[in-house]
């Protein structure tokens, strides 16, 4: 069996990539994808842990994370479309009416 630490390391790396992507990318869609990457890193962690701990909770949690992520993506894309209609951009630095 593959050791748990391999999965945990992969998940940590994926999560870190997601965090870096979120902090450095300035395109809305790319920032969304970074969040999705972070969520999927968590999913990987959960499923691996669930297998090694022999407990179902992790897998059930993964189900919930997947559905919530889908709902979040739907709302996010909806808001992105509204934003694009009013500003003609999805670049975060150009969306800056609110300041202070």
């Amino acid at each position: 069996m593959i050791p748990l630490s391999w999965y945990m390391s992969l998940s940590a790396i994926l999560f870190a990539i997601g965090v870096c992507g979120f902090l450095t990318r300035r395109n809305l869609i790319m920032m969304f994808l970074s969040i999705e990457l972070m969520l999927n890193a968590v999913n990987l962690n959960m499923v691996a842990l669930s297998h090694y701990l022999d407990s179902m909770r992790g897998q059930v949690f993964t189900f919930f994370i997947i559905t919530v992520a889908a709902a979040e993506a739907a709302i996010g894309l909806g808001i992105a479309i509204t934003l694009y209609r009013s500003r003609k951009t999805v670049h975060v630095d150009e969306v800056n009416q609110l300041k202070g």
Partner: protein
Amino acid sequence: MEAMYIPKEYLAILILLIFGVLFGVVTLYVGRFFRLSRPYHEKLIAYESGNDPTEAPRMRFSIKFYLIAILFVVFDVESIYLYPWAVTYDRLGLFALVEMFIFIFLLLAGYVYAWKKEVLQWEK
């Protein structure tokens, strides 16, 4: 400290991967030495089933596609709850059946809402 773990059972996949990559790279690379290279305009334009391309590939799609796609994603993912329920149905019994009906009713409410909001209608 345990001995370094080597995932032997995945060795076949690794070999397949290596051969797969090599097959593509080698044939393309070796082929370059033997084939003729006479490019002209018709050959270089994007291949679209033999038709001449009429628009730039980055054209904008109708917003309707996105709406349908978003709806699809939501309903598609919600259905994953049906699988674990179906697998363990005989142990969960009537209670779970009722719960699943409530769940599907909620999904249906969302569907009716989308319908009445004319999201599914292509042309107004």
